[in-house]
């Protein structure tokens, strides 16, 4: 058993952090009931609501399944296939994280206008999401004890059977964790489905804001997504099962015997067929846009200042998210007690909400509770923290699960108190995972659009707002320098992420 402690203050801190992520709920409930219960139920129980919910479920479901399959495959390629260049492969497969889904969708639509509809939405969202499965699964694969597989092999199982019967069951938890994030993201996305003209549930929410000017209707419908998130989180906790400590891998995974050329080529071909649509198409299109004639020259000063601003915002978001996530993740992994896992569960509840809903909630609460901070940087960071808390918590939780309790217990028996144990034993081992989570959050914050658009200080521009400005007037040549800059800025944390994930377990 990994859960060893009681600690009311840390649990208290964790609940505070979790309540931060529930701020949108306060707004949603207030706003949706503002015109009475009758209007509330009217908005909710409409034929179109159910139809679109169904369409969203189909899209989210298929994207999740595809992301899990591709995520497991790419994780296998990087950790267990025996191919050389593990770091390079991990970085390459993580690169789709550097491309915002709306940008990828624009790129696809410019290239193949006929891809609009379900197909386009499916491709873009799967490409954007599979790394959320790949990263935790590859980290888990790297620390699997090969002893079990060797035993199965001596009993006569072939490779495919070993993978299905021995490896996959041990990966249940990272797969479930990644799949949850993918499903929630696919439910909340609007940018990609709008560009692909594939109508799903988020359309009605956006429509209620932009076309119906009816925040009450938008709030009511958003509550449906909250319920969906609740259900999915519950399902994931069932799949995850009671927490079982992972046996630490004491034997280093030796490289498999050399693969045949045919086998290698198959793996490489499959990998390219994943990377080409995921990264190839967007990058090629964006570079192509640079060549189009534009009536304005490239304003390099503007590109530089917006890049710097994006970097600052992203870093600030990552730092604040990290500080808030640490107690939540620690409680989920180490704390005894009935309520220990609650804060972590709570952070997922608002993760299915589209960005505009979180933005409007923070506007509502911010302007009433912390007026001096309204339309200032702190509230913008706060809104982004709400969105990215679950992602960071998941990463830190996975990292903390890696550190064996036995080491901490040894340290304590030698006389160090809890805090020193945390600082000198647990955190250093968990550090790669924590840094990976921070890189992932910073990446996501740089790409983020709706919260930035609504909460930014008047006059502040970031890479994502500039890309949006020029895309809406179809000036793709003007989009290109900002899009490339975003790819470069985002590629740095992605490379860090890839390197950290590829680090062999046990290296200090």
């Amino acid at each position, binding site marked *: 058993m990994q859960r060893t402690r009681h600690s009311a203050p840390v649990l208290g801190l964790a609940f505070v952090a979790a309540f931060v992520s529930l701020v949108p709920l306060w707004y949603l409930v207030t706003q949706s009931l503002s015109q009475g219960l009758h209007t509330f139920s009217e908005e909710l129980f409409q034929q179109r609501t159910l139809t679109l919910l169904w369409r969203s479920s189909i899209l989210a479901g298929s994207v999740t399944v595809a992301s899990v399959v591709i995520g497991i495959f790419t994780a296998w390629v990087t950790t267990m296939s025996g191919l050389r260049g593990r770091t390079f492969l991990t970085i390459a497969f993580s690169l789709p994280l550097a491309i915002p889904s709306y940008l990828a969708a624009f790129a696809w639509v410019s290239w193949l206008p006929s891809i609009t509809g379900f197909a386009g939405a499916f491709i873009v969202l799967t490409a954007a999401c599979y790394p959320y499965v790949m990263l935790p699964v590859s980290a888990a694969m790297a620390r699997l004890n090969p002893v079990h597989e060797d035993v199965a092999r001596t009993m006569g199982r072939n490779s495919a059977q070993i993978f299905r019967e021995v490896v996959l069951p041990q990966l249940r938890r990272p797969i479930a964790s990644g799949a949850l994030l993918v499903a929630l993201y696919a439910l909340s996305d609007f940018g990609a489905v709008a560009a692909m003209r594939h*109508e799903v549930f988020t359309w009605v929410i956006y429509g209620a804001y932009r076309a119906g000017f009816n925040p009450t209707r938008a709030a009511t419908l958003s509550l449906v997504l909250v319920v969906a998130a609740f259900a999915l989180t519950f399902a994931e906790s069932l799949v995850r099962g009671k927490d079982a400590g992972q046996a630490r891998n004491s034997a280093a995974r030796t490289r498999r015997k050399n693969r045949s050329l045919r086998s290698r080529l198959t793996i490489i071909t499959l990998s390219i067929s994943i990377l080409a649509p995921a990264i190839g198409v967007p990058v090629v299109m964006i570079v192509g846009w640079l060549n189009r004639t534009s009536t304005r020259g490239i304003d390099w000063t503007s590109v530089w200042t917006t890049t710097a601003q994006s970097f600052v915002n992203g870093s600030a978001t990552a730092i604040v998210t990290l*500080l808030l996530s640490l107690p939540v993740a620690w409680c989920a992994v180490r704390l005894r007690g009935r309520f220990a896992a609650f804060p972590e569960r709570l952070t997922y509840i608002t993760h299915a909400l589209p960005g505009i809903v979180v933005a409007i909630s923070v506007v509502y609460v911010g*302007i009433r509770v912390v007026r001096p901070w309204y339309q200032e940087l702190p509230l913008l960071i706060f809104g982004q923290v709400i969105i990215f808390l679950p992602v960071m918590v998941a990463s830190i939780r996975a990292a903390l699960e890696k550190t064996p309790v036995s080491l901490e217990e040894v340290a304590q028996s030698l006389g160090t*108190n809890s805090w020193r144990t945390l600082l000198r034993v647990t955190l250093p081992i968990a550090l790669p995972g924590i840094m990976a989570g921070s890189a992932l959050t910073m990446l996501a914050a740089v790409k983020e659009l709706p919260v930035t658009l609504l909460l930014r200080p008047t006059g502040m521009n970031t890479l994502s707002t500039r890309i949006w400005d020029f895309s809406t007037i*179809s000036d793709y040549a003007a989009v290109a320098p900002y899009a490339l800059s975003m790819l470069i800025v985002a590629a740095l944390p992605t490379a860090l992420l890839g390197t950290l994930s590829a680090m062999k377990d046990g290296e200090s």
Partner: protein
Amino acid sequence: MKSFRRSLAAVAALSLLVTACGSSDSSSDTTVATDDTTVTVYSGRSEELVKELFDQFTAETGISVDARYGDSGEMAALLLTEGSASPADVFFSQDAGALGAVEGNLASLPDSTLSAVEAKYAATSGKWVGVTGRVRVVVYNPTLAPTPPNTIDGLLDSKWSGKIGFAPTNASWQSFVTALRVLRGEDGAEKWLTAFAKNKPVAYEKNGAVRDAVNAGEVALGLVNHYYLLEKIAAEGADKVVAKNQFMASADVGGLVNVAGVGILANAKHKTAAQKFVDFLQSEKAAEYFRTKTYEYILATGAAQPDGLPDFATLNSPSIDLSDLKSLDVTQELLQKVGLLTK
């Protein structure tokens, strides 16, 4: 006990961090803003389009403009959510529907402002006024369509099957459909849309793409706003452009004038500056800006119009309370139902 103190220290450090972020930006709140030195504008028109105009305003009056740009609908939602604590003084919207949605938060404009335009281009409540107008037209290729229709019912003729281009996600097209619903009722609108869908119109992403397709001969007719053709002629020269604009018959709903307008927030902190801003938008200087930059019609009565366009007065756009254009979401549902919006 020790760990409790440590937790407390952590929380204190966190709040210090967050306060530090905030305090660096709070200096702007301590300067006392007098009524006249600055105005906060929420603009549904893009920065690309209107920044220059705002700079002209500052140059002329000395009042600095704090402009926030975004989609008109999102700006309206923002204003509604902010309520009376909104920092905005002026809402400059791309279309009338968004203005209609926030009418409850707007102040009544003075008579001099309202009477500068024809009555149908200002709110019946007197809360907002139109500045420029975009007219819906049929852009046509003279070779493929020597006699284009000038009524929307004329578009339903089967000889145009597969030959009409339109932009399903475009706001102006959707405003037209909303006007159709208002003037013909829900059933009448659905009937027209179903017949239109039967004529297999070709969908394009944007109005510009529709215009280019008509010019290239890919389709014979296109449903766009009047200025797209003028933009192309200005960019490429009149001799290179074969397409022409067909303006609609008098009072036909197809000739809807979409209005970009402005309103002053009831709780504005800089009311004098806001009024000066509105006055500037109705001035000849702003009119000249819109004429040359966007080729839109100027709604101020008696103002000069862009070259090459029919006399605004003769257009006789359909009479409809433009505030009624705020039921855009119902329009989108109808379009989706008829199959004209999404795949």
